């Protein structure tokens, strides 16, 4: 079931939200609304769900409303219209102390500039959430110690935040959020202030940490590479509205608008695109009981130099090349069965492009994409990979 559900969330900053709302309903953009009514639109009719255990990345440039969005989820900012549901509970209807209770139980938050308390040492920073909950000193120290271990900072308990590097400070921030064992992690540009190498490490670590802790994570970023790397799904925000929701691959291969396309242009696609995105359908195949001449004819029609041989249920048997087929034809073989090359490389739909390029560099024919039952799903040819890298994506 969905852990977080956001419905028609709208946030308008200013004393007269109703004026802005009328214009919003007419489809006006936030600049026009601001110049006409003086109201700043933070979010306009945003709806989405986050499933338990999922990493949802909210991605957008500054001013797109992503920070407002993450703060509406734990009501650090009160939504103007719309509703936010956490585990089926409408949090906008909560009273002040119910809200405090919800924040204590369900949320851990990580901030862009770490927001560590400079007057507390590492361990008492990590303990903060437990301390606020009234946890006894001994058990909160123990839990905080475990959280520090999780982020690889054992031994730094008594250091002051100011003595740590940025990357280490953010690990403390992460440990502080994990120490309360929340269901949901809210990460607000958590890695944006780190330098690129550290940032990549932290992204890796977050993904592997997530394997172990299985939290529901709402992650905010302005960096598409980061979004693609850690997101199970991505929401793209622009000017307070949702432009596209989808898996990393959907965003890359079928950008919903020119705006998304422009984002996607700069991405290092080899790392995010997979065989599934660049493969073509295998329209023409050979069957084991086809004669060599039939196979030659099929190749001739498509000007292929080889054909995949499959059973009727598309289980891949191998490959016949044009040279072998013509030899077999002149020998007078009745079927292609004898000339099938069985020892060929195969890939699965989620093989990344980097691996594909490596294989294609040493392989002289098309590359079959198969599922777990070894059924042929499609083929990857060099041209398709190049085309995807050039930006088309739809091959």
């Amino acid at each position, binding site marked *: 079931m969905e852990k977080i559900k956001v419905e028609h969330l709208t946030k308008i900053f200013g004393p007269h939200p109703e004026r802005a709302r009328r214009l919003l309903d007419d489809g006006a953009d936030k600049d026009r609304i601001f110049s006409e009514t003086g109201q700043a639109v933070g979010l306009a009719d945003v709806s989405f769900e986050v499933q338990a255990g999922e990493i949802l990345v909210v991605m957008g440039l500054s001013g797109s409303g992503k920070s407002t969005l993450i703060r509406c989820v734990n009501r650090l900012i009160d939504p103007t219209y719309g509703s936010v549901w956490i585990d089926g509970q409408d949090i906008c209807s909560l009273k002040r102390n119910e809200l*405090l209770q919800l924040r204590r139980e369900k949320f851990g938050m990580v901030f862009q500039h770490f*927001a*560590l*308390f400079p007057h507390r040492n590492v361990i008492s920073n990590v303990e903060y959430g437990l301390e606020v*909950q009234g946890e006894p000193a001994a058990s909160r120290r123990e839990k905080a110690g475990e959280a520090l271990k999780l982020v690889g900072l054992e031994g730094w308990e008594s250091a002051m935040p100011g003595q740590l590097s940025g990357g280490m400070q953010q690990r403390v921030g992460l440990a502080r959020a994990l120490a309360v064992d929340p269901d949901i992690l809210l990460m607000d540009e958590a890695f944006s202030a780190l330098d690129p190498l550290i940032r990549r490490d932290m992204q890796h670590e977050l993904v592997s940490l997530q394997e172990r802790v299985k939290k529901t994570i709402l992650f905010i970023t302005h960096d598409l590479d980061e979004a693609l790397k850690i997101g199970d799904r991505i929401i793209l925000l622009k000017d307070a509205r949702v432009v596209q929701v989808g898996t990393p691959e959907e965003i890359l291969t079928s950008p919903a608008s020119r705006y998304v396309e422009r984002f996607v242009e700069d991405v290092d696609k080899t790392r995010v695109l997979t065989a599934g995105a660049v493969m073509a359908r295998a329209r023409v195949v050979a069957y084991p009981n086809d004669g060599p001449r039939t196979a030659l004819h099929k190749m001739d029609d498509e000007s292929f130099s080889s054909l995949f041989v499959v059973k009727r249920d598309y289980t891949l048997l191998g490959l016949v090349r044009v040279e072998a087929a013509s030899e077999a034809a002149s020998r007078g073989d009745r079927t292609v069965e004898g000339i099938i090359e069985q020892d060929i490389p195969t890939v699965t739909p989620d093989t990344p492009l980097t691996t594909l390029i490596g294989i294609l560099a040493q392989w002289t024919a098309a590359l079959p994409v198969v599922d777990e039952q070894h059924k042929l799903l499609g083929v990857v040819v060099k041209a398709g990979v190049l085309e995807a890298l050039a930006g088309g994506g739809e091959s």
Partner: protein
Amino acid sequence: MDITVPKFPLAELINRLLDFLTSHFALFTKAVSNVLSTGIHDMVAVLMYFPPWVLILVFAALAWKVAGWRVGVFTVLGLALLWNVQLWYPTMQTLTLVTIATAIAMLIGLPLGILAALSQTAYRIIMPILDFMQTMPAFVYLIPAIPFFGLGPVSAIFATVIFAMPPAIRLTALGIRQVPADLIEASDAFGSTKTQKLVKVQLPLAVPTIMAGVNQTIMLALSMVVIAAMIGAEGLGGKVWEAIQRLEPGKGFQAGIAVVILAMILDRMTQRIGRRGSTGQ
């Protein structure tokens, strides 16, 4: 042709208000007066119980520990000089007045500062009053002090507290308000109540600024207890006041220099405490 504009009876109104206060709060002011004069008397008695050299060493050790050896040495030399020119007793009287006035100013100022920091309404009410308190000539506070508490050190403390309190309130409010927004947000995100946020995050981070307020309050208190000699506060101010009346510039400056020495010692020590607070540990 004369146009007679009726005079607005501002002075009379204030007189009537003060009369009202003196007659209706007499019980309260008497109580305060008793408690305070006992307190002042006892503290001076305690300070004078020890031979001066013992206290000089104690103060010097304290200054050394808090603010380093330079201030420690300065404390020894400065206080020894005051002892030598026979200003030890008035110096202890002044120190007592400053200490008590500062303590009361902080006791009132700290909560008001916190209130002004947390509530915008309180801020809008308190800040103009502080402006008023600070721009009003300091001497004026001496006048109502007399009907309230009579001539003497208690009146001096009353006037001093009013005069010296504004920076304590202002800097407490400032210190709390300038705690970075993301730390407040972090505290909120973990479900802190307002009190938890104040005690665990806002106040500890405001300590350096609050200590700057304490420092300023002490300095203002010191200058005011000297002025308050006019209404019977004893101590170094009394010596200055005597020197004015007898036209003895040498004695006047001697007492003045004693005030400067006391001010420098107190200033260096409280400044250092504030700075220590700001480094975190």
